[in-house]
């Protein structure tokens, strides 16, 4: 690069004044620097990504977030280190398949603040799952990412392998607008898209409260929806839940094979029968039984092929059977 620069300078040297020479030299130097910078960037994006680069690139650049500016350096946590960020709250993320997170605060001149967290999960299903865990029936759906929800002072959206959470520290219109601005900027940077797990489509559509859907990848997720058992009695690897307008919830737990489902059904039946948390156990037939929880809620449990089907709440046996028939 230096030789090229010298040659270019020398060939024009005889005809140009000193000022013109300097201008020509500066121009060539600028070109050289620009080319070097571009080469560096190109090389960086193609080199094997380090942890730091992978998530940093999703943070919106200054100017893309309106009046909101980055406040301090981003924090990053990977794998088991998530525990040092959110202590016991890390377990549910690990259950869903957490890989890494980047956290960046944004601030406005008037002191308002927003916290941005971009979680990378192990798969699109994992990201969808933790999204359903963190959202609720009351939030407002937004057209962002693959799915997005705005609550009073915070927002979650799912896109591809990522869950993005933005937290404001008040419910002012200005803060809510800021949540949307930053979220849109992050959304624009994430190119991949995800799909809802096909399993979710098994939930009957009639009277389903869409924002109540929860997708589980383990017992913690299930327990937070309904505390069937503290132990992982179901050996759950994949499950879904939906609430219905009539006042009941439908759970579907999937197993890898019919035989596994059948074997597990017998074990689960015993657990319900022997547990002090449940009463009035009744075997309806070889594939269906019912119990009541300590608050008197009815629970119907059946299995079919690879799945457990469970209905909890304000429902009778006939209706529960109809729902199971629809799902099967």
């Amino acid at each position, binding site marked *: 690069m230096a030789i090229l620069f010298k040659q270019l300078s020398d060939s024009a040297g005889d005809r140009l004044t000193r000022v013109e020479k300097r201008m020509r030299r500066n121009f060539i130097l600028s070109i050289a620097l620009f080319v070097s910078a571009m080469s560096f960037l190109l090389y960086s994006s193609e080199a094997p990504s380090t942890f730091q680069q992978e998530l940093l690139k999703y943070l919106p650049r200054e100017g893309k977030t309106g009046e909101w500016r980055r406040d301090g350096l981003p924090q990053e946590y990977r794998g088991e280190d998530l525990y040092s960020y959110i202590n016991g*709250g890390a377990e549910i993320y690990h*259950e869903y398949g957490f890989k890494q997170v980047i956290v960046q605060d944004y601030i406005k001149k008037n002191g308002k603040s927003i916290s941005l967290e971009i979680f990378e999960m192990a798969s699109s299903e994992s990201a969808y799952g933790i999204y359903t*865990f963190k959202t609720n029936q009351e939030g407002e759906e937004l057209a962002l990412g693959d799915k997005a929800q705005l609550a009073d002072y915070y927002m979650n959206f799912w896109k591809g392998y990522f869950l993005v959470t933005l*937290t404001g520290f008040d419910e002012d219109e200005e803060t809510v607008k800021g949540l949307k601005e930053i979220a849109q900027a992050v959304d624009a940077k994430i190119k991949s898209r995800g799909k809802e797990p096909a399993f979710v489509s098994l939930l009957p559509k009639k009277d389903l409260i869409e924002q109540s859907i929860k997708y589980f990848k383990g017992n*913690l997720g299930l327990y937070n929806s309904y*505390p069937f058992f503290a132990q992982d009695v179901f050996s759950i690897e994949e499950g879904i839940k939906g609430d219905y307008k009539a006042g009941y919830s439908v759970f579907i737990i999937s197993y890898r094979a019919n035989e596994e489902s059948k074997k597990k059904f017998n074990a689960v039946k015993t657990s319900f029968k022997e547990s002090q948390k449940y009463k009035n156990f009744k075997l309806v037939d070889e594939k269906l039984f019912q119990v009541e929880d300590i608050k008197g809620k009815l629970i119907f449990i059946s299995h079919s092929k690879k799945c457990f089907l469970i209905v909890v709440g304000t429902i009778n046996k006939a209706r529960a059977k109809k729902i199971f028939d629809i799902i099967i």
Partner: protein
Amino acid sequence: MAKKIGRREFVKKSAKIGVSAAIGSSFIYELVDGSVHAFGKEKIDIAVVSGSDYIKSTISAVELLGGVRKFIPKDSKVAILPNTQSRHPGTYTKPEIVRAVIRMSKIAGAREINCLSWLARKYWEATGLAQAVEEEGANLKLIESSDESLFKPVPIPQGKALKEARIMKEFFNNDVFINMPITKDHAGNKFTGTMKNLMGLNFSKNNRTFHKEDWKTNRSSIEYLDQCIADLNTIIKPTLCFVDATEFITTNGPFGPGILAKLQKIVAGVDRVAIDAYCTTLWGMEPQDIIMINKGYEHNLGEINLEKVKIKEIKI
């Protein structure tokens, strides 16, 4: 009935310890004089005070329990343990509540007041708690979380899951311990309150084992986590607990963000099981729903049946 002091004597005493301007002596005088029956014969197990002034509510709560001098001897060293885990709304103990406890400790004649934590200063600053502690003249004692030498091994003879804890050595330099959690949701076991807050005194690597038996398997063993928490509580007994139930998350705990319940309540008492049992009812649960509370009861740490507990609720 305990002795009521007159206004003149009260102002004289308050001025002596330089408290009146800070607290609002007329309010304290009202408490002493009769708007709240501070020193009645009525034994109260849990005091619940609702109101938008959290300092007043905290002070009123302790007055309902018999007054601050009942719990904090003169010249004592007082350790305070608020929850400052996250700065998201509804996840940390409000600074006003901590201010009130520090001020009351001073009224009682405490020699030294120490806020203990193994969390980094940035957490304390982000929640406004560092400022509150320092402005009120208490000490912020931050313990390096990764330095095991700063924690003392303590055997747990009654432990069913947890056999040994590692409690910060600084804790043992104090005479009185005031436990100040916020009650909120917790994804690990659905609830956090007075018993779970004691993990804030325990070495973080030891805490980690509560979530993961043998470090290897069964990450989602909720019962194991709750048994460990109850076991931990058998070796430490707070002198007094104040629970922030003013504004707290009911989903996505412990870190948030989540749906906020805005009840504006301060809950105070000594019986940890009873207090946690009461707090579960604040967002539609029952004490029996929470394994940790049942385990605490099994350890005879307190009463789970709220019908056997004397609860006094007032609104300011």
